[in-house]
C-alpha cells in the first residue's frame, strides 16, 4: 500500500468519526459498526464493510447514506462501496472505550 493510500485511509477513518448513529450521539466508529475500510487509489474507491446492531435496525439506510456522503466529500474518493456483513456479529463488546464513556455520561447503560 502506498503512503498516499495510507494517508487517504487515515482521513477516511477521521471522516467516519464524524458520522453519528442517528439514535445515539456516538460515531459509527465508536459504536463498532465499521468492520473494515480500504482505499483503492487506482479506482479512487473506498471499500467499506459495516455491520449493524440489529438486522431490523430502522436507521440502516440513513447511516449508509451519511457514510457515503462523508467519504465522497474526500477529494481523493470518487466511489464508495458499502457491504453489510453480519459476521462478526455485533455485540456491546464492539463499542469503543471512548464511546462507552460518552454513552454512560448520557445515562445509557453499556
Amino acid at each position: 500500500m502506498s503512503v498516499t493510500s495510507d494517508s487517504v485511509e487515515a482521513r477516511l477513518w477521521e471522516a467516519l468519526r464524524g458520522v453519528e448513529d442517528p439514535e445515539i450521539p456516538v460515531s459509527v466508529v465508536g459504536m463498532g459498526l465499521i468492520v473494515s475500510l480500504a482505499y483503492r487509489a487506482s479506482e479512487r474507491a473506498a471499500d467499506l464493510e459495516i455491520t449493524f446492531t440489529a438486522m431490523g435496525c430502522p436507521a440502516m439506510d440513513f447511516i449508509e447514506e451519511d457514510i457515503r456522503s462523508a467519504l465522497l466529500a474526500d477529494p481523493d474518493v470518487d466511489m464508495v462501496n458499502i457491504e453489510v456483513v453480519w459476521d462478526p456479529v455485533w455485540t456491546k463488546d464492539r463499542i469503543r472505550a471512548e464511546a462507552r464513556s460518552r454513552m454512560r455520561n448520557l445515562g445509557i447503560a453499556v
Partner: protein
Amino acid sequence: MSVVRVDAATVTMISLIGSLADNKGALGRRYGEWAVSAPTIESAVAAAAMAQDELGHARSTYPVLAKLGVEREDAGLDAGHPLVVISSELPDWASFIAANLVVDGVLTTFVAGARDSSIEPLAQRARKILQEEGAHKVHAEAWARRMARVGGPDLELLVRRTEEMWASAARWPGPDGHDGYTAAVEAGMVASSPSAIRAQVRDWLSALLGGVSLDEPGDWSEWDEQYRR
C-alpha cells in the same frame, strides 16, 4: 423466479431460504399487528421489537437467493408465500404465542443448522439471526409458563393454537429422505434433517406444555415443495 443452478441440493436450499424469508416477513407483520393490543404494555413493546427483528431477518435473507443465482421479482415484504397459519391476522394472543413457539421455533431450529453452512452468506446471517432469536424464545417460554401456571381456558386455547401451528409448521422442513434435502446435508449447506428439526422442536414444546399433541406429519402427497406447505 429464475433459477440458474439446478442441482437438487441448490434447488432445495433456494426453496428453504426463500420460504424462510417469506415466513420471517409474515411473522414480522403478525407480530406488528399485536404491538398495539397485547395484554400488557411490556408485551406490546416486545411485540414491536420482535416484529422489527423479523422484518430485518426477512430483508437480510432475500439477498442470499441472489448469491444462489436466483432473481426473485416478488422478493419483498408485501409478497411471498408464507405458511397459511401466519398469512393473515392472528385471532388471539394465544395464537401470537403459538406462532412464536412453533413457527419461529421451527424456522430458528433450521437456521441453527445453517450456522456453519457452506453457503457463506447464509451462515453469516444465521449467526446474527440466532443472536436475535434468543430474546424471542425467552418471551415465548415466559408466556407459555405463565399460561401453564394459570391453567384453565387460556391454557386450553394455547395448547389448541400450538397444535394448529404445528400441523402447518411441522411440514415446513419437508419429508425425511427428500432427495434435495439429503443432498444439501451432504454438501454441508445445512446440518439438521427435517425429522431432526421436528424432533428438537417437539421435545422442547412437549416439556413446556404438558398435554400438547404434536404428531409427525403423515401424508406428503399434496406437499408443495416450492412453498413448503
